[in-house]
């Protein structure tokens, strides 16, 4: 037995990676075995090995589509963060502004993007811009609501301390409200990054139905029409991996910013 075999198993991070990985591998193996034994045709459910082969074979085409989807997701996410934070800062200026405008932010959130995407695609000529608008609308609300909540969630004792020292509005914002809002803001980022991807895919679907598009959703749509189910699964896999990667990135960002002091990122 190797001398360092024991400590690896005992390390706290080990099982957090190993346990989900083991379940994933087991499920994939079962999928492969069941499909092979029951001779399920690949146009219904392809085996994992066939999906992997397709992913390699169609990689050039799929990569192009992935980059298109990533570009729209990224643009929408950045736009949502900038707009959302700006709107949140306006909201916390006064209760009156918040009360007047918040219902409209909620409308933004509850209106299904699929329902308004066709309109936006008609109104906005450039496809990339139209898709970005759709995805931004989808990703905006969590940033607004979380940042607003964060900017308001200030320790009342610290607020008194700032008042006592005759701090200006700007000093209170910069030194107290913004740092206090960070944990909430990062929570918003995590939700919003996923929604930007979903928004991009949904908008691509709508645009793709109309015959225009080149993103992953368009590939899924085309693969469906052609009954090329392995490619459909491969595209789906790429979308899922992108989502996981985004979530992981946002979590890492949050950890880097808050690890020292906030409860959510300790231990």
């Amino acid at each position: 037995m190797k001398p360092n075999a024991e400590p690896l198993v005992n390390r706290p991070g080990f099982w957090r990676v190993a346990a989900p990985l083991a379940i994933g591998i087991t499920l994939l193996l079962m999928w492969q075995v069941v499909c092979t034994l029951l001779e399920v045709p690949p146009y219904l459910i392809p085996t994992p090995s066939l999906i992997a082969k397709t992913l390699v074979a169609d990689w050039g085409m799929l990569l192009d589509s992935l980059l298109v989807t990533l570009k729209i997701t990224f643009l929408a996410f950045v736009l949502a963060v900038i707009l959302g934070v700006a709107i949140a800062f306006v909201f916390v200026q006064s209760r009156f502004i918040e009360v007047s405008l918040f219902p409209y932010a909620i409308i933004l959130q509850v209106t299904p993007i699929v329902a308004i995407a066709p309109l936006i695609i008609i109104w906005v000529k450039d496809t990339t811009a139209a898709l970005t608008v759709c995805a931004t609308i989808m990703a905006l609300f969590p940033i607004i609501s979380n940042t607003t909540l964060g900017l308001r969630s200030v320790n009342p004792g610290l607020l008194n301390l700032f008042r006592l020292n005759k701090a200006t509005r700007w000093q209170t914002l910069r030194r107290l409200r913004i740092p206090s809002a960070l944990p909430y803001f990062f929570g918003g980022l995590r939700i919003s990054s996923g929604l930007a991807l979903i928004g991009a895919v949904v908008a691509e679907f709508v645009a793709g139905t109309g015959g225009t598009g080149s993103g992953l959703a368009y590939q899924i749509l085309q693969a469906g029409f052609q009954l090329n189910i392995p490619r459909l699964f491969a595209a789906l896999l790429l979308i899922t991996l992108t989502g996981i990667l985004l979530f992981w990135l946002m979590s890492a960002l949050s950890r880097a910013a808050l690890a020292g002091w906030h409860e959510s990122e300790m231990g």
Partner: protein
Amino acid sequence: MDRDDHAMSQAAAWEQQGEASGEAPVLSAQRVEKTYRNGTRALDEVRLDIGRGEFVSLLGPSGCGKSTLLKMFAGLEEPSHGHLRWWGGNLATVGTPERTLAMVFQEATLMPWATVEQNARLPLDLRHVPRAQADARVAAALKLVGLDKFHKVLPRELSGGMQMRASIARALATSPNLLLMDEPFGALDEFTRNKLDADLRDIWSQQDLTVVFVTHSIYEAVFLSSRVIVMAARPGRVIADVAIDAPGPRDEAFRISAPFMQYCKTLSDYLTLANQQGGGHEAQR
């Protein structure tokens, strides 16, 4: 109505007096009342003068308005009636180097994202004190509370007692003339509390500092103070003003001395008496 007029002219008279003699009381409450919007009487006609260099404790049970009174001293709450004066002037005159006010809250209220040093420096940063001067004052304040080795540490890495020390350092860094403390050691264990009480008393005796200290502990009040204001609840009011006249060092020996016990007994009797006639006062009015 005429009560207000009277208070106004009285306040004007003090201001003249203060200018004449050059030494108005550090804090002065003239018929100060606080009634909340729902009708709760938090404070009833408090009159109090606190002179320079005094260590005054506000002692009383929960709901006697001692914290409310302290918040008014800090300018964080307005009285419903009556007037407050700081060094003979209104709140706007507070904040000059000779008239600096600092407050220590019930909880340490430190910024969790900032180091001990950054926390202690905050009031100076807000006042735009030059960097070199701020460095020196923060270092001195941290040394005074015994945290000089912990200046780069985040608050969560400190024990409750050390967090409170950081909070006190933050107040001392402003070189206050008036220090307001709202049950600062209430959440600490007895040993830590006694130690901090003794250290606070040392700091006070070394500096030209007036302290108003809110507590519900009779022992703490007697140990620390040169004067104890005893308060009762429903409605919150002052029932006694007791000078703690105990020369000599306030140390562990003082805690078990006969005068200490006698003062504790006196204060306890006042509080018991006030509890017994609690409702009677309200009926009289």
